[in-house]
């Protein structure tokens, strides 16, 4: 079974530029998550989708971050404009989303460096 795919693996941009990350979840997984992992910290949830609807985006900095999951499959996360403090690993995860508990599977992440 293919895992969660993310691209690119690495990205370096200058501050005030824009950047986009792509995630392809495991086939059939209804729930998709984007996490931000700053160096030395645990992952922090940015946004959670259930199919193509947003379930939780309370910690998404909406003035500069946006995410979409058209057709309830792939997802993109965009930052515009980027700040130095956005340097982090951006993790995508997916789960079946049915029942009381389903395991979340994580991709390898995209490491963003803002200079």
């Amino acid at each position, binding site marked *: 079974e293919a895992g*969660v795919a993310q691209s690119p693996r690495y990205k370096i941009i200058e501050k005030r530029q824009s950047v986009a990350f792509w995630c392809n979840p495991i086939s059939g997984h209804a*729930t998709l*998550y984007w996490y931000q992992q700053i160096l*030395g*910290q*645990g*992952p*922090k*949830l940015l946004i*959670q989708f*259930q199919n193509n609807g947003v*379930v*939780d985006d309370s910690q998404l900095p909406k003035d500069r971050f946006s995410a979409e999951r058209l057709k309830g499959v792939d997802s993109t996360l965009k930052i515009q404009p980027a700040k130095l403090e956005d340097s982090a690993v951006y*993790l995508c*995860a997916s789960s079946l989303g049915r029942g*009381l*508990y389903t*395991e*979340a599977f*994580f*991709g*390898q*992440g995209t490491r963003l460096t803002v200079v």
Partner: protein
Amino acid sequence: AQSVTQLDSQVPVFEEAPVELRCNYSSSVSVYLFWYVQYPNQGLQLLLKYLSGSTLVESINGFEAEFNKSQTSFHLRKPSVHISDTAEYFCAVRPNSGYSTLTFGKGTMLLVSP
């Protein structure tokens, strides 16, 4: 809201020695508990989980964790570590109802040396 505290940012041990990685949590509702492992340049992998039932849970590679409700802890242990166990370990919690999400601790880097 939930929070997770991993007091040790780094734990150095020698190969074949026992290890304990500490995790304490705070929550106003019942939660599921997890340990994830992250090897260098890789994504997070689920190591073990507590959902219900026996408070002692085990992984396939020799780790175990015990849920202690009174102490709100979920410490991870291994009686004898290998070099290959060198990785970052994250404790996480999730409410056991609704569209709830994982809340992670800051992680503990386990460094195993020969």
